[in-house]
């Protein structure tokens, strides 16, 4: 029986003189899970995370972290939480070591601990521990924020767009870090605009748009359930129009008639491919290549958000 570490129940938020950033959201996350919240700008991802972490007061609903209500029992709940914010907000004149030690103390732990060294080494910050934060590059600053969030050994980590404004190498590093943290048993909730990131890191994916959590699904199940596949036939001779005999599969012509594309439902019993190929052969339409591919989360996402728009 998986044990929920985070329960969000009926949480909504309307900012004063502002928009309704979140309509009623329910979410449950189990210990050890990695959940990606995917959504466009202004969807309400940061708002949701801020409510859980105690930075924004919800208009309604309740949140429980590690069995503690985040309002009534805020101290215990917050000790279990680590937060890496979206914005790069740092104390410019502090050293790396000082700011990470500060964070650990702030969350009620002694500043004298080998754990701090370990975190800094894990994030390749140990060599830079005496550097002032203002002298670090943007990517390094983001690592510092992660080190600060991890400093008090939280059980659940929130990463709000960890790879925004980060180069490819650092993004890969970040992914590795997330996997390593998961091996150590951490629960991680991250937000992102990038589908590849959700695909790479998450066990489950939640899609947020305009303040609504449209769905939360196992990543693989989501791909299988909503995933469309597509088959491209590269034709020897281009076609002007789809032959009437193929109309029941409603394929499309791409690439100026050089490609016949058929989109099908990957989870259906009968994909229709054998029949289509037989019909193509019957009509003596020659093709030199055949390719099928899975649609990515990106396609699924565009579909979903499009449907509700």
């Amino acid at each position, binding site marked *: 029986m998986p044990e929920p570490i985070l329960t969000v129940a009926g949480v909504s938020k309307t900012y004063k003189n502002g928009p309704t950033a979140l309509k009623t959201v329910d979410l449950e996350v189990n210990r050890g899970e990695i959940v990606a919240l995917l959504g466009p700008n202004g969807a309400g991802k940061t708002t949701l995370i801020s409510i859980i*972490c105690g930075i924004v007061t919800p208009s309604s609903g309740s949140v429980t972290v590690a069995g503690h209500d985040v309002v009534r029992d805020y101290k215990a709940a917050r000790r279990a939480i680590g937060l890496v914010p979206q914005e790069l907000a740092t104390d410019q004149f502090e050293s790396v070591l000082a700011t990470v030690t500060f964070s650990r*103390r702030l969350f009620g732990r002694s500043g004298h601990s080998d754990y701090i060294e370990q975190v800094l080494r894990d994030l390749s910050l140990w060599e830079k521990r005496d550097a002032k934060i203002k002298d670090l590059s943007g990517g390094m600053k983001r690592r510092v924020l992660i080190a600060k969030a991890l400093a008090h050994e939280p059980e659940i980590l929130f990463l709000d767009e960890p790879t925004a404004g980060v180069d490819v190498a650092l993004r890969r590093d970040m992914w590795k870090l997330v996997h390593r943290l998961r091996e150590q048993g951490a629960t991680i909730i991250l937000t992102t605009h990038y589908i590849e990131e959700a695909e790479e890191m998450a066990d489950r994916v939640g899609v947020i748009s305009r303040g609504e959590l449209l769905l939360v699904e196992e990543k693989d199940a989501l791909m299988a359930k909503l995933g469309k596949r597509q088959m491209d036939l590269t034709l020897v001779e281009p076609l002007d129009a789809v032959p009437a005999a193929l109309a029941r599969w409603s394929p499309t012509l791409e690439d100026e008639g050089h490609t016949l594309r058929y989109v099908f439902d990957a989870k259906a019993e009968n994909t229709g491919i054998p029949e289509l190929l037989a019909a193509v052969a019957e009509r003596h339409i020659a093709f030199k290549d055949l390719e099928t591919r899975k649609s990515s989360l990106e396609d699924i996402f565009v579909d979903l958000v499009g449907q509700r728009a």
Partner: protein
Amino acid sequence: MNLHGIWAIYRFEMARFGRTIWTSLATPVITTTLYFIVFGSAIGSQMKNIGDVPYGAFIVPGLMLLTIFSESVFNASLGIYMPKFTGTIYELLSAPLSAVETVIGYVGAAATKSLVIGLVIFATAHLFVDLHVAHPLLMLFYLLLVAASFSLFGFCLGIWANGFEQLQIIPLLVITPLTFLGGAFYSLTVLPEPWRTVTLFNPVAYLINGFRWTFFGISDVDVLACVAVTAGFGAFCLAAVVAIFRTGWRLKS
């Protein structure tokens, strides 16, 4: 009680002061020296004693408070305003700290710095005048009370302020005039009516007279009233801070 958390804030704030320690200490020493040259020697030699107290010594408590007011308000307000300004406040808001613990950290640090500066001025004053403090323990206690109260006030100001100019406007428009008009440099007894009575409505007059009483055992107003006003001001600021945190006013959306 999150003692580590309080300690973290206190250390952070003290480190911030530490980075500017020489300007922080040189400024009050130089200002005090200037005041003594002008008021103590140049003008003071023309002034008659107030009671048994030479004028040069008489102005020492007011001079100390003048700096302590502004240092306390400035440091405490900047301490909480800066995280709001840079965005690092997210960490404070998401930390397992109660309102009281947060305030102890920030206000404790600001009050400590004011206290140190106050004592530096006190020491500097010794170079110019003979000073015998009648009630040294009470004097220290009073200094602490005033420093803590004004740091609390500064903390509220820092939460309220939406810009740097707002941080400066209140000390400039309210505290400094009230201090000068509250008898920092003169005895209320020299004032003609109705100004004497008007001054009795200035709370700062009570703070200054109470503090002066710990030095010389003289006060223009009732000492108990002085203590009551000082403690009342501190309690009012404390209540304001607790209310601010409870409602999240200007801190949380």
